[in-house]
């Protein structure tokens, strides 16, 4: 073997796969490994995939066996595939199909059949399953329809994936189609990757499909993908999203691009409680309750409408109580949409189990290369700590140190310089601390949107921004998700939630909608403080997606 004969894949002993981006067989290898390996990171030279039990069971559910996986690995691997990796793949895949979940004559009861005495005995002895599974003869358990999700979740935790053969219920039919020209007058078409994402979810409509999570970069049109799925299924749909602005955005998009009339779309929020064949609700209203002890009254929304599809927008933000109710509605088709499936509470596993496994993922840079999302340049601007704050910073505790660094007054001067540079661009100034943002808004004379800003006022500011009447808006972390700001091409981040990778990615996402000019993302941090460390952590997700941060050190003298 010499360097020119190198194959693109390195199969590591821990079942991770390194894929050489510069290898001529990169594209075909990526296509072949994607069905059974999850993309972990995709920086400039070497992409990392991970073969996990979940990814293997997903592959198994799609009919891929271990021989095929081994063949693909052998075919692309630069070095002999470690024996333990092949063994592990075979072992894990062999567990798929050992437990089958199916319907019974009673609509409210499901059966779980086990094809091995050993596993049957093991499950019978499991304390956590005692109240959920009722053993009957012939290695079979019965369970309540409502416990379907919880049982699957628990079995997965024990290392046994369930082949869910019980059919999903069809909701009430609701027919609509896409417009060829949008209501706003633009030619409309669905992009290839959006179609691919849709098909990966809907599949062949056979058991094992109809639930899952789709991961697409910000600005890649997750809403369009959601609407495509609705269009395929033609059924009553409940859409859950993060806030009222996002609810309105969904409604506007549906009206703009489909034949669904506005009056057939219900808004279920703090302000309105209208249920229609297509209903858009916020997570907040679902988890609202009078006090900690009382029930969640709005959970009935899941049960009252005969939904054929539930869309979980920004699924990485799914509140914990919604997990519970999601577990109960496992007979309904459901899809999670997200750009960054990173949860600070580590509950990614629950998302996969209850909403569904990852069905589609695409590297951000791949869409950028094809022009589907804007080319974005990331800059980190470092500035010294304000002289007066140095002693205060030195003696402060860790948390206060971060805040002092985040609120460094020099940052305002940098913002002014950047706004001057981008005077023709629509710009967002995004931050964490409302006091700081209020101060900035006052100095740069820009409107501000925080959690306290009333919805009509927000909409008004957004409208002016969209029309270009307002060039700059200052936003708190309410802008992290689902605010459609199509014309923003510059984002200036003055402070953030410590080292949140997800927040960084979502904030970049605010400026990724394709437009004529490239987008610029600035992050201002205080030099030689803890903010530097948190910033490095924040940037991890994006750098792993292949974004490069251009670091600039600004001199305070130039700002005086």
């Amino acid at each position, binding site marked *: 073997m010499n360097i020119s004969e190198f194959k693109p894949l390195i199969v*590591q002993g*821990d079942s991770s796969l390194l894929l050489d981006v510069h290898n001529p067989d990169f594209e075909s290898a990526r296509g072949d490994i994607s069905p059974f390996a999850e993309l972990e*990171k995709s920086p400039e*030279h*070497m992409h990392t995939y991970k073969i996990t039990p979940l990814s293997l069971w997903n592959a198994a559910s799609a009919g891929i066996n271990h021989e095929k996986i081994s063949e693909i690995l052998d075919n692309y691997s630069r070095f002999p595939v470690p024996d333990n990796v092949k063994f592990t793949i075979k072992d894990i895949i062999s567990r798929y199909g050992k437990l089958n979940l199916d319907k019974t004559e009673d609509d409210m009861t499901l059966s779980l059949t086990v094809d091995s005495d050993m596993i049957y005995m093991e499950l019978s002895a499991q304390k956590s399953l005692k109240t959920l599974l009722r053993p009957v003869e012939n290695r079979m358990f019965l369970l309540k329809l409502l416990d379907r999700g919880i049982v699957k979740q628990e079995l997965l935790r024990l290392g046994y994936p369930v082949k869910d053969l019980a059919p999903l219920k069809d909701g009430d039919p609701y027919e609509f189609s896409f417009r060829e020209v949008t209501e706003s007058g633009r030619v409309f078409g669905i992009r290839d990757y959006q179609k691919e994402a849709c098909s990966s979810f809907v599949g062949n409509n056979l058991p094992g499909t109809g639930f899952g999570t789709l991961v697409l970069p910000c600005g890649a049109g997750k809403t369009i993908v959601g609407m495509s799925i609705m269009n395929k299924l033609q059924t009553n749909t409940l859409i859950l999203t993060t806030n009222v602005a996002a609810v309105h955005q969904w409604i506007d998009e549906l009206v703009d691009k489909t034949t669904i009339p506005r009056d057939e779309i219900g808004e279920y929020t703090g302000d309105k409680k209208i249920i229609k064949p297509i209903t858009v609700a916020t997570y907040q209203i679902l988890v609202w309750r009078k006090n900690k002890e009382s029930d969640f009254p709005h959970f009935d929304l899941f049960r009252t409408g005969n939904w054929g599809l539930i869309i979980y927008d920004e699924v990485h933000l799914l509140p914990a109580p919604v997990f519970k109710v999601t577990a109960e509605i496992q007979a309904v088709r459901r899809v999670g949409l997200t750009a960054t499936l990173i949860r600070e509470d580590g509950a990614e596993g629950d998302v996969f189990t209850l909403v569904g496994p990852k069905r589609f993922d695409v590297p951000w840079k791949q869409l950028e290369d094809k022009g589907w999302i804007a080319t974005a340049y990331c800059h980190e601007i470092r500035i010294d700590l304000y002289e007066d704050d140095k002693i205060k910073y030195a003696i402060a505790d860790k948390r206060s140190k971060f805040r002092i660094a985040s609120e460094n007054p020099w940052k305002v001067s940098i913002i002014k310089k950047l706004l001057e540079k981008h005077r023709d661009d629509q710009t967002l100034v995004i931050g964490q601390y409302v006091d700081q943002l209020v101060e900035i808004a006052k100095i740069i004379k820009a409107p501000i949107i925080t959690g306290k800003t009333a919805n009509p006022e927000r909409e008004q500011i957004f409208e002016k921004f969209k029309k270009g009447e307002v060039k700059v808006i200052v936003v708190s972390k309410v802008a992290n998700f689902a605010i459609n700001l199509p014309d923003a091409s510059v984002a200036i981040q003055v402070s953030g939630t410590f080292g949140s990778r997800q927040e960084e990615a979502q904030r970049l996402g605010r400026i990724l909608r394709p437009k004529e000019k490239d987008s610029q993302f600035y992050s201002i941090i205080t030099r030689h403080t803890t903010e530097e460390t948190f910033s490095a952590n924040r940037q991890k997700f994006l750098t792993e997606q292949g974004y490069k941060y251009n*670091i600039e050190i600004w001199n305070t003298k130039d700002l005086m």
Partner: protein
Amino acid sequence: MINISNQWKQLMLTLPDNYFFELMKNYLGKIETPFNKHNLVDDLSKFLVKHEADKKILYSLDQKEILILTSVAFIEKPTAKSIFEFFLGDVPFIELCDILKTLEEKLVIYSDSGIIHISPLFSDTVNNEIINPGLLYKSEMITPGSGTYIWLTDSLILSFLSLLFHQKDLLKSSGAFKKRAYTQVSGIFPNLFSGPLGNKRIELIRRIIHNLKLFRIDDSILIPREQIWEKLQKLPRGEAWLYMVAAGTTESSGNLGDRITTVKRVIETVPSNRSFYPENLKKLIKALSSDCHLTNNAALSDFIEDLIVLNVLEVLEDGTITKNPLLDLSNINPDYGDRKTIIIQPNFDITFKPWINFKDGYFVSIFSDLKKMDIYTEFSLTKESVLRGLTVASIDTFINSVEKITANPIPDNIRLSLREWEKESVKARHYEASVVIVDKDKDFIIKETGVIDHLILLNPANGIYLIKPEDYKRAKVLLESVDIFPVDKNHSLPLDDATLPDYIQSKPLKIEWEEREIKDYGLSKNKLLDIIKNLPASKEEAEDLKKRVTRGIIFTKEQLQTGISKTDFSEAKGINYQAKLRLIEVSLKSTNDRLEINYVEDFQIKKELILPTKIEKQGELKVLHGIKLPQEQPYSIDISKISLVRRIQTTLF
């Protein structure tokens, strides 16, 4: 071929008289007086040529004699003791002595100051036709398999360099890994260090780190010994690998040079197309080894086991052992022409390719945190890791090293971060240095002459100079040369002069692995034994002649004569105390006599071979003192406790 040389004749003439005449009588029959020793040696020469003694003697050697003769040819400076040790106890010492004496009587070997040599008389035939390494190191021809990948690589050691340098407190003061370290290591190094084999591998790594002196410990922090790493970087890859393997197979760094030589000779001598039973491999390694720690069975077993774990050797299904066919010292861990051994990405990830060498990986390991050791090993540059790296080298060194390897500038964001961290690192500094404080009236001399400028680490204030501890002696000499005589105050930093040992570059043994077939000369001992039946000899004499025929020192009917036997008194047993005492006294007069002593202890008969030194009277008792063989330990026994004593001649010379 018989080579009657002057050297051989001289050897014969140096034999003690009693042995000389014994030998002559055996071959030439009764000796008539007057005699001349020179003439007797000439007569013996003629006898040997006439009777083709080379063939008759050599072609009738039995397998044990050939084995021992082969060991004489292969062991450096062989003695009875070293041959006994070589066979790892397979041949009892008494039997070995008996065989060696028989070979002397057959004129095949001789001893000089205890060292055994092949006699020049038959040396050509012995070397060309008789000695049989294939028999000594018995092995089977095999078709080499595909081999086992070699896990001990530069990349692995470099990853340990990063791990141990950046993580505090992983080693005990004894140098062993802490329990916590095992868990951590098996997490970072998936597969390689899991299970019982994993623990063994970690132990070998510990030995490598310890024996190569890769680190010094400074208050629970491990600091890489730069001089050692520099030397490793300069060594060709195969040679550096030899150092690592050898260091992994020994508990002590004291014998590392010998161990390296041994490992190299094993690799170069053992072929990949033959498999050995462990016992035969041990003998081979023993013959190849100059390492005094590889003498006993247990040490050799451990050594072989270590070599198996290190994939130098591999065990086949039938339990035999062969050399890993993938092992090629001139091509260890080949790079396939890919010299860009590291990948650095803008997300601060650094990846080592499997064929990275010490030179390429040293500074990266110093400056980055190990994330995962695998086929491609993954590191990450962090502020903390870089700040620690700065205690060993500069950012420029790191950047230059990386850019040279990748043939590309490092990503801008990384470069800038490194520079920022570098700046931060100098805001508060800690030096380990010798401090020279000089008064104003002397300081100007230093400034004017610049005499120690090249040794100054830092000049933090007027008259204060920091100098590396290892440079201080030179600085002192230079200062004295300009009339400044620093007085040593509290100056006792030990200098770290650890270095890698050298080893002897010896050639591998060239061994014919196939067993030789010794020609059959058609000598019939039975015919000779039949003749003895008709000889007018006493019973004792006939027995002695039979023994000589059986041992092969009589091989022609001309030798079968009465009156040549020496029916010596050589054994005493039972209640005859006086006989035992007399036998011991007689053997005390001969330097070549040893005594086989039997006595009863715990209802069992025990046997010892003794070199008698004296008899001492202790009250009513007479105690025999001597040296127990082959252990060469002092030995004493009350003569009345001896149940049997036998005189044994171990050598003629």
